């Protein structure tokens, strides 16, 4: 009799073979691990915390109480629509692979690069944000040089751990998910019991902005960057789908539930943190409003202890994001979509991890803030260091959401043409609601893409526009006509089995 777990693994492998790929990566992750990696990358203790000051300065407490659920609503639609695609096409190339199959290699190539740009900026945003917390907590002076040194050390730790092995990282990701929930509980309970609080109605009614020359409603919309950047990276469940057991069901649930659970716990945390604000003007003006609230509400030592808990969550988030990005690089390079593909498509024989992809992700993530610092140095009268962090997170948000939007748009087109029917769906689908949910998701993606490049986020627009122009040039010079999209690794089942056998040796 076939063992049920073995049966599930064989079925996963058989589906992968149907797409022409061998089972090269170790399929070790269960459903919880798959959920955990997306939940850890969304990381409510990273995005919502490091951009707390941006949200507060843009629209005040109302950004937390009304902005968060508003963004959550539309992100649910995006997540559900992506989950459907992950179930239908369960390969680690994910967005890139979906776009290629639905619209051809050019669409796939664009989606892949937008996703990569978004993921690289996400790693930079997470680890740089973590450095902004660790530096003062260690008692170091808050200078760009110290931030960059701590940032580099954090990236190094993530690259080494991701190189060493999927088992270690998977265990840390599992722990990270529990840690995040426990961390929010500590934050909420500490503030609930020990901090003086504003009345609940204050959080829902208090408007505030430091942005000049713009109406309040527009500033409020700009503040949604805080929630929107938090809700990024949940495509990680799809990037690790070739390492997940019962992949066509577990990974879609991983995408969807990571957003739902983050929505609930993120909201709880933001409400309690905002209730603990003593002086709104002073908090908004502080170098780091989140740290300021804790120091004011809980005192120096206790406040710092809670902040260390939050900071460790950011480290976990960075670890998961490097995992996800390296899988994306591996899948794209496997299909010869990037320069030096043969190098980045290799898998470490010893650890069975995409080691070259791991190090590329870490190096590019380090270079992005360097580029922005160079721009700030070159144009000191027009740009300031304070714009660095919103710019990095803005690039990440736009890059990722555009890469989410491309396969969704192509799927809608395929449905309209009758190319995609219900027979193409995987087990996880929305049935008759699929088109409506896809459409709502696309409208939201279009809206935020425009919103987050308008002033005061114009630096994001310049850098993203420049990157996109460079990609278009690269496409026409070196890629057009050469890139064929997802390539089967072998022509027959026997050849795929041979590739797998070589790795087992």
């Amino acid at each position: 009799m076939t063992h049920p777990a073995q049966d599930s693994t064989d079925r996963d492998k058989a589906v992968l073979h149907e797409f022409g790929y061998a089972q090269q990566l170790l399929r070790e992750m269960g459903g919880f691990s798959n959920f955990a990696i997306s939940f850890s990358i969304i990381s409510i203790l990273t995005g919502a915390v490091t951009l707390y000051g941006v949200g507060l300065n843009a629209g005040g407490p109302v950004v937390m109480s009304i902005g968060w659920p508003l963004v959550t609503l539309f992100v649910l639609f995006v997540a559900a629509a992506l989950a459907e695609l992950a179930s239908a096409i369960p390969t680690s190339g994910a967005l890139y692979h979906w776009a290629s199959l639905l619209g051809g290699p050019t669409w796939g190539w664009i989606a892949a690069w937008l996703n990569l740009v978004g993921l690289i900026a996400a790693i930079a945003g997470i680890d740089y944000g973590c450095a902004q917390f660790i530096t003062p907590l260690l008692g170091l002076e808050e200078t760009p040089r110290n931030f960059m040194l701590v940032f580099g050390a954090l990236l190094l730790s993530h690259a080494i751990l991701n190189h060493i092995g999927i088992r270690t990282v998977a265990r840390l990701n599992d722990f990270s998910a529990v840690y995040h929930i426990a961390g929010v509980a500590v934050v909420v309970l500490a503030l609930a019991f020990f901090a003086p609080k504003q009345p609940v109605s204050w959080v829902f009614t208090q408007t505030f902005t430091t942005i000049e020359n713009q109406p309040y409603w527009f500033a409020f919309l700009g503040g949604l960057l805080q929630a929107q950047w938090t809700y990024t990276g949940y495509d990680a469940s799809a990037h690790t789908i070739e390492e997940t057991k019962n992949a066509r069901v577990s990974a879609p649930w991983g995408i969807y539930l990571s957003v739902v659970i983050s929505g609930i716990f993120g909201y709880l945390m933001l409400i309690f943190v905002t209730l603990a604000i003593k002086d709104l003007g002073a908090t908004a003006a502080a170098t780091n409003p989140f740290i300021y609230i804790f120091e004011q509400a809980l005192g120096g030592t206790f406040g710092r202890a809670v902040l260390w808990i939050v900071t460790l969550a950011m480290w976990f988030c960075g670890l998961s994001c490097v995992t996800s990005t390296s899988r994306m690089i591996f899948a794209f390079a496997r299909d010869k979509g990037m320069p030096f593909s043969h190098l980045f498509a290799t898998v470490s024989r010893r650890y069975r991890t995409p080691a070259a992809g791991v190090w590329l992700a870490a190096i590019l993530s380090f270079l992005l803030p360097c580029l922005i610092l160079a721009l700030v140095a070159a144009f000191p009268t027009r740009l300031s260091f304070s714009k660095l962090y919103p710019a990095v997170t803005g690039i990440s948000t736009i890059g990722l959401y555009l890469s989410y939007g491309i396969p969704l748009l192509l799927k809608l087109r395929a449905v309209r043409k009758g190319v995609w029917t219900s027979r193409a769906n995987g087990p996880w689908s929305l049935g008759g609601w699929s088109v409506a949910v896809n459409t709502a998701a696309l409208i939201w993606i279009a809206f935020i893409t425009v919103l987050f490049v308008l002033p005061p986020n114009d630096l994001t627009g310049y850098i993203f526009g420049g990157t996109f122009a460079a990609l278009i040039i690269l496409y026409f010079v070196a890629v057009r006509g050469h890139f064929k999209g997802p390539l089967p690794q072998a022509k027959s089942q026997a050849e795929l089995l041979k590739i797998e056998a070589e790795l087992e040796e």
Partner: protein
Amino acid sequence: MDQYGIIIGAALLVIVSACAWFLGTKAHAEVRRFRDEQHEHFRGRPDS
């Protein structure tokens, strides 16, 4: 905002919760239907 903040906030929370529940329930039903059509059934714990 003084008058409407709480109403808007409460309404949003209800809408988000309802949507999350509805989409999750719908997907769960589709997974079950797919398994029935594929004749996939639970066949006991791995150690049984």
